[in-house]
């Protein structure tokens, strides 16, 4: 029996730990197709669009009009001009509306790619802006009472169990070193795990051939939680991003990542 176990161990040493896909990832190398999407996003930023024929260059992402370097790493944050806490996706929709005169019912109608699509404008912009924060310390603003309220709300929602399966975010994401099937699960209540996970989105999803954003990741989590559809730019979406970003604060932005 002991010999048998040893043989098993020799034959499949990687299966018992998190190195299960190391060989696969070594073969993949660091060639991440997200680099195309970064370029596309940059072009969208400088492209004149909408009734006003304006670019997004005057968009204030929190660090002043047109400042893109490091801006992603400080979202979600409070904006006085809208009197609300916004994630980067809703802020971009706001800029498209105010600067370019584009109707938000159109720009926000389909923020994320569906099956068979090959990327949306919003996905490209967010990917480029994340790349503009590569290597930057994650430092979401928490100075405004509304920002702190968003964190508190995010924490409540994180543990809220509902639906036919009784799932909450915490079901999969409040313990360390766990996996679902073979997929490692980050413990989002833990600083190091939260920093690694939050800092790696947006990410190129190999299974879909697309870059996906943090907003999309949340929508898809809720689908798998058997909840109804999460509304783009909703309180829950921004609150959970705030909860994750604050838990990740001090970590480094590495996005765009490369994921299963």
């Amino acid at each position: 029996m002991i010999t048998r176990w040893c043989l098993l161990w020799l034959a499949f040493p990687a299966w018992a730990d998190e190195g299960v896909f190391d060989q696969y990832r070594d073969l993949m190398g660091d060639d991440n197709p997200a680099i195309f999407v970064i370029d596309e996003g940059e072009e969208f930023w400088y492209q004149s669009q909408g009734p006003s024929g304006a670019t997004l260059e005057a968009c204030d992402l929190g660090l002043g009009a047109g400042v893109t370097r490091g801006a992603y790493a400080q979202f979600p944050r409070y904006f006085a001009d809208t009197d609300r806490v916004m994630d980067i996706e809703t802020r971009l929709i706001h800029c498209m509306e105010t600067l370019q005169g584009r109707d938000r019912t159109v720009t926000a109608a389909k923020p994320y790619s569906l099956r068979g699509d090959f990327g949306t404008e919003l996905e490209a912009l967010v990917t480029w802006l994340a790349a503009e924060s590569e290597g930057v310390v994650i430092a979401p603003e928490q100075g405004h009472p509304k920002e702190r309220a968003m964190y508190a709300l995010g924490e409540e929602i994180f543990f809220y169990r509902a639906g036919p399966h009784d799932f909450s975010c915490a079901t999969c994401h409040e313990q360390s070193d766990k996996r679902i099937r073979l997929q490692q699960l980050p413990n989002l209540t833990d600083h190091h795990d939260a920093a690694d996970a939050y800092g790696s989105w947006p990410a190129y999803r190999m299974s879909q051939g697309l870059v996906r954003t943090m907003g999309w990741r949340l929508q898809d989590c809720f689908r798998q939680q058997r909840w109804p559809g999460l509304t783009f730019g909703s309180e829950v979406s921004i609150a959970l991003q705030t909860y994750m970003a604050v838990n990740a604060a001090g970590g480094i932005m590495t996005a765009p990542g490369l994921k299963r």
Partner: protein
Amino acid sequence: MNKTEKGRVSRRRLLNWVALLSTAVALPARAWAAVTRPDTAFDATALDQALMALGETPTRHEGVIFTTPDIAENGAVVPIRVEVDQTVLPNVSKVYVLVEMNPNPLAAVFDIASGTEVYIETRVKVAQTGNLYAVVESDGQLFMASRETKVTLGGCGG
């Protein structure tokens, strides 16, 4: 570099690219004038059918060095590498990659210029757990290596 400059660079890059493309459109046709696409093999829906379309049944040969992951995180993207040890298997002119369980097993064929190393890396779709084959043509004969790759199921949705 401030943002406005960066934007200009980006637009200039785009223009360059468009100019390049227009001069290059004719290139592919010229480049593979000598090589016809093996349509019958590509259309085959079973492994033996595809191999038959390539000619004789390939012989296993240790000179074909085929690297695939034992277990793939995702069947949509499975990285593969084909190398040939030319000391034991010289004059390789073609490399075929086949995936046993795919609807059309033949995934790709590579024509290698003579007098160069055989080294190819790419990523293929693998529908389900099964064997992958690297078949090479050397002096008109076919040789191969095969490897099993397990394709795992994803997260919560199964």
